[in-house]
């Protein structure tokens, strides 16, 4: 029997677009893959914030995770590049057009194994970009080998244990220059949503490491990136609430243990402290928190670090406000006089 159209599906956002305008093509990832959940969150956030799809550019490397940009924001340009080099690709495009909203989606192998060097240099540059790591501790697309974020002791389907310590992309990011660093879990809809929305408002590099279990190769008991493990060991740093710049803030503000982080576009990220005092602007404190959580076998989620003062790479380069890509000839080709002057000097 045919389903009757529910009014919901006719709903539009503040720029008059339906959620359909934010969807991509049908996923080809495994049913239940954490990556699919993340794609859905992305669709929701961009829809709800009413971002113009064509102002967004999607970037990825190679992997199951890197395939996912085809499955959301079908009306945004996308660039599924080569394995481990997405940071360079995203950087180049942002240099060409600073007005783009850059969204990179990648995997742990793509980022922490082959791509570690580029990741670190992107972090150092604080490239304005949302960099989402769909972290499952394995190489999904090549059938389940360990990545460099696999925890010591986690085992392959074959039972082989990983003996090398993992890289913590959040620790690396916040220590070496990223200005918004968070961790989440693909199963935690609410948290992931507010993180993504805050990231969209942030001016600079956002790194969100999302534990995203691979149901096919790494969702067994031996794995610290399995649904069960994360559910049991997740410890949220704080409750998050995000207020877009176009919503009235005052009504939202709650006094007391709420810390309000104003983002560059006027929107606000409100972090409700839990028991422990946690200051997301203190880098070393963040590192220590991660260190302790790891020792306890906990997965610390939430906003780990925010820095709203460090200039992003585009500002450091002092680029004109218009996209370099489309500057007119009159601006990019110096005058005849200039050439003559140069030639004179060489005589």
């Amino acid at each position, binding site marked *: 029997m045919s389903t009757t159209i529910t009014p919901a599906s006719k709903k539009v956002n503040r720029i008059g677009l339906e959620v359909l305008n934010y969807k991509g093509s049908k996923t080809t990832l495994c049913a239940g893959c954490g990556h699919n959940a993340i794609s859905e969150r992305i669709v929701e956030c961009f829809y709800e914030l009413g971002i113009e799809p*064509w102002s967004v550019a999607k970037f990825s490397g190679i992997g199951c995770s890197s395939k996912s940009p085809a499955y959301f924001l079908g009306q945004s340009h996308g660039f599924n590049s080569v394995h481990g080099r997405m940071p360079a690709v995203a950087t180049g495009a942002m240099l060409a057009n600073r007005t783009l909203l850059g969204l990179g989606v990648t995997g742990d192998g793509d980022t922490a194994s082959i791509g570690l060097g580029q990741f670190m240099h992107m972090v150092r540059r604080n490239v304005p970009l949302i960099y989402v790591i769909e972290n499952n501790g394995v190489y999904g697309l090549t059938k389940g080998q360990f990545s460099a974020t696999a925890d010591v002791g986690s085992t392959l389907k074959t039972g082989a244990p990983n003996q090398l310590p993992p890289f913590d992309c959040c620790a690396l990011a916040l220590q070496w220059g990223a200005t918004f660093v968070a961790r989440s879990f693909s199963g935690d809809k609410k948290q992931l949503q507010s993180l993504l929305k805050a990231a969209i408002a942030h001016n600079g590099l956002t790194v969100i490491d999302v534990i995203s279990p691979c149901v096919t190769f790494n969702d067994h008991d031996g794995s610290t990136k399995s649904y069960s493990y994360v559910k049991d060991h997740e410890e949220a740093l704080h409750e998050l609430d995000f207020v877009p710049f176009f919503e009235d803030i005052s009504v939202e503000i709650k006094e007391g243990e709420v810390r309000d982080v104003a983002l560059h576009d006027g929107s606000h990220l409100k972090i409700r402290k839990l028991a422990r005092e946690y200051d997301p602007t203190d880098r070393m404190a963040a590192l220590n928190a991660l260190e302790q959580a790891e020792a306890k076998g906990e997965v610390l989620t939430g906003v780990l670090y925010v820095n709203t003062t460090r200039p992003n790479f585009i500002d450091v380069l002092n680029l004109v406000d218009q996209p370099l890509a489309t500057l007119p000839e009159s601006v990019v080709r110096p005058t005849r006089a200039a050439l003559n002057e140069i030639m004179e000097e060489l005589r």
Partner: protein
Amino acid sequence: MSTLEVSPLAPSSGASGQPKTNDFSIQVGTVNGSGSQTANTVLLRTIFQMGIPVSGKNMFPSNIAGLPTWFTIRASQQGYIGRRKEIDFLVAMNPETAREDVMNLQPGAAVVYDEPLQLRALRDDLHFYPVPFDKLVAPVCPDAKLRKLVRNMIYDGVVAWLLSLEMAEVRNALVKQFGKRKAKAAELNWGAAQAGYDWAAQTLTKTDPYRAERMNATTGKVIIDGNAACALGAMFAGVTVVTWYPITPSSSLVESLIGYAKRYRHDPETGKATYAIVQAEDELASIGMALSAGWAGARSMTATAGPGISLMSEFIGLGYYAELPVVIFDIERVGPSTGLPTRTAQGDILTNAILSHGDTRHPMFFPCSPEECFSMSMEAFEFAEQFQTPVFVMSDLDLGMNSWMADPFPYPEKPIRRGKVLSAEDLEKLGSFARYKDVDGDGIGYRTLPGTKHQAAAYFTRGSGHNEKAQYTEREDDYIHNMERLAHKFETMRSHVPAPLVRINDRAKIGFVAVGTSDYAVRESCDQLRQEYDIETSYMRLRAYPFTPELKDFIQRHERIYVVEQNRDAQLLSLMRLEYEPELIAKLRSVRYFGGMPLDARTVTDEVVRQERK
């Protein structure tokens, strides 16, 4: 000991014969880092300013200080500015190499040297001019720390006297060199040059035949290196994103672009930059950024050399298959691996033509002069955007880092064309588009730029299988169809690349084919072959790959074709072998040199004669 060496010291054998005017080569042997650069440039400019065709080449080691360096200057009234192996005039300042340098000279050559080196004893068929540099420098340079540098200007003075160079031009050259700001330094050096000149005038008796005489063959010309010329070409092409990773001999290309862009590419009001120049962490990153900047609509480029080319190969394959415009300046140097980083070669031709795994083909432009470095850089950017693919500009260390005479560059009159890019308005009319569809029959699809405000603008770029609509596909037919279109696009390029330059000699049975800096040796060799062996030759200088129909005609026209190139494996000839009919291939002969020095005419002439005699 200097008493032992009383000048003049005419050669006992090898009579000096009639004067040789405006046709000599000077070699200055020094130690790098000893600041001889100024003295050598001044010498070069002096001859240039006297209107005599001249070129200067620096043979320097791959380290920063302390190793032997040679600077050769060639003055030629006939306008031969390629390298000449035979040195007429040696200035021996480096104790380490002085003896070998002297032994390598032809009988009758002249040697200006630092007296304590006692070279005179070595041979009796040369003109020796010992100079007591230390004695001469002390009075003109009280500050002992500076003497090491100023010392070199003394030989400028001595050489000026011996070759009767005009001291007025020496002074002009010095001023030019130091500019207004460093007037004091200029004066100090001027003093040294004069001291050398005066001492020579008083002490020496000229016995060698070499002398300079004012001409007017350089009026209006400039002196510039190829890298700076490429940089200017890029700037006037309107390049907006430049990514690089330092590597000899390409670094100075981007560094001079940085200098020029600082002056001419900032918004007058805001002072903000209309370009981004980014030093990446390595070549994988630099090409990745440049490719993607091209994808996003910027005119983007990178510059590198051999090792960087290898590191770029994965991304170049993506650029070919996903069809992304970018210009790669490959300033070739010697060798596989690190090789000889400060020596010149044409060794990446075959590598770049098929760079990256799988079936790929890439266009290459071959400039041979500063003028072409400027013009071809601009053409390369247009071409990359027209064909939506990576384009290599193939320069080399000789062209890129040495000093060349050039005509002033003409201002680009053609407006900038950005290729097949659809705007929001276009999309409004069209309703939709298929990124990889061959609408016009030239194999080139239409693209849109990210940020284009239209619901139909977006498409998905990937290095994996895609159909005309840029959708993911693993279908046999889609893949074949797309790869055949790419092959067709490559064929289309043949009628759009820079055409070859050809000199047909109706009496010639043989023809030369060459690219880039091999040109100077080949042109001179043509004359040598006529004058010395009366062998007539035609000559075609290719300026791009893929080859144009002219090459085929040229080969057909002649009995034998000598393909001259600076690598071991006959890479340029190999590319011809890949596509030509056997009858044409049968005519191809190879002249190769891969020792790292700029190619010289004699090497070419000897090899051609050897093969012709066979």
